[in-house]
């Protein structure tokens, strides 16, 4: 019997995206450009994170009309963002036929205590995480994919690195623990015991894990891949740079050939100005996006 919306089918789409670049786009034209550059999927948005950061106000799910235009423009999967905990925005995106939903800290949270129960949806979800406990809590709610949060809209890779290292270090630590210490680890990480055991056995997260939040150059993208990411999200980094088409293509080349410094050197040449970038340490606490959700 055919079954839709199962864990295998939801996690499976994320597996097909591995080794790829998912690009934020705000128009059908940008979506086509991303597809032509070699993106494996696009994230349909009303504003890229750098603009959300600059303009302030409440950031919500994009206009369905905008999302439908982007879905009509490309054949690669289309993702879209909902506010943390806003399960009705998610119901709307599922009705539109969006391929993946990002329950994202980049938008203004709708619920400061509860994330969406992702089990009730046929469409897979990707969620942000800063450490292993947060990643496994989202998996406990049936997220089908994880991305490190980084600090979106800054063009500064330092937080993405911090979060990827935190997850990888925690997995290595788990692997060194004897069985009887797993329950204490589950308590310390505030994460489901069974998922702790599964992660230890696999030596990696049980789902695909992309890097996100501050990737602006081919070298940034390859850095995240060498640190263990399965692929990368690039948000503001492409369309806030001087030559988006060229930069998008170069980041795709860098992710495919992330262990080949010769290719990385060629991909990094003559790309024009990257996005300006922000020093995360100078951001006021209230402007940090990564602390949204838990």
């Amino acid at each position, binding site marked *: *019997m055919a079954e839709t919306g199962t864990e*295998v089918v939801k996690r499976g789409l994320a597996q097909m995206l591995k080794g790829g670049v998912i690009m934020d786009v705000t128009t059908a034209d940008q979506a086509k450009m991303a597809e032509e550059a070699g993106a494996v999927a696009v994230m349909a948005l009303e504003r890229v994170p750098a603009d959300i950061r600059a303009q302030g106000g409440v950031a919500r799910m994009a206009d369905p009309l905008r999302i439908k235009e982007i879905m009509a423009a490309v054949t690669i999967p289309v993702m879209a963002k909902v506010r943390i905990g806003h399960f009705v925005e998610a119901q709307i995106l599922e009705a539109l036929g969006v391929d993946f939903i990002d329950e994202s800290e980049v938008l203004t949270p709708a619920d400061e205590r509860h994330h969406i129960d992702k089990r009730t949806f046929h469409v897979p979800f990707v969620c942000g995480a800063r450490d292993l406990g947060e990643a496994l809590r989202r998996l406990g709610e049936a997220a089908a994919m994880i991305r490190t949060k980084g600090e979106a809209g800054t063009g500064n890779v330092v937080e993405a690195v911090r979060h990827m290292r935190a997850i990888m270090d925690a997995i290595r630590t788990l692997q060194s623990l004897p069985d009887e210490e797993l329950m204490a680890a589950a308590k310390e990480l505030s994460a489901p015991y069974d998922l702790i055991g599964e992660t230890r056995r696999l030596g990696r997260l049980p789902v695909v894990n992309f890097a996100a939040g501050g990737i602006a150059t081919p070298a940034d993208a390859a850095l995240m891949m060498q640190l263990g990411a399965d692929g990368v999200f690039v948000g503001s980094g492409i369309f806030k740079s001087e030559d988006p088409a060229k930069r998008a293509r170069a980041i795709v080349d860098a992710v495919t050939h992330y262990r080949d410094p010769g290719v990385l050197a060629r991909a990094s040449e003559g790309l024009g100005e990257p996005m300006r970038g922000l020093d995360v340490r100078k951001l006021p606490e209230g402007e940090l996006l990564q602390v949204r959700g838990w």
Partner: protein
Amino acid sequence: MRVGVLALQGDVAEHIAVLRADGAQTLEVRTPEELRAADALIIPGGESTTIGMLMDRYGLAEAIRARGAQGMPIFGTCAGAILLARRAGGGAPPLLGLMDIAVERNAYGRQRESFAADLTAPQISPTPLRVAFIRAPIITEVGPPVQMLGMYDGRPVLVRQGPLLAATFHPEVLGQTALHRYFLQMVDQAA
């Protein structure tokens, strides 16, 4: 005997894990030089648009076409099956065109229509195989040299033409080893 897995993008690690479980030696293929070291090739699942474009960009499309024409065994799953086809509807990337089949991309619908199902393929496995169809294509036409090895819902989903094998689904996602074992037998026969 080394089986290459085209590693431009997609579920490369899943294929490598299944091949190793079947006792095969594997290598990742990202360049024409790496392809030269492979005796057979798997084109994994992924985004056919992306993989097709990158194959072209890195000179692999020409190299794979040439090796395919010389009889190198190739197994394509989902995106890989699309790329092996002669013709694809639904916004097609550049294809290898090695197999006499036509496909329609994303033919079951979008991701919410993706599914897992039991597949009957008596020449591959005596019992039904549980496999995943993820934004899968449909094979709409098969030419005379093409054998239909597996059917689902009245349509061919697993086809063979000499040393070329194409599946519109993913045996690797559920860790099914039977199809890879069958492919490895094809590789042995070709050697």
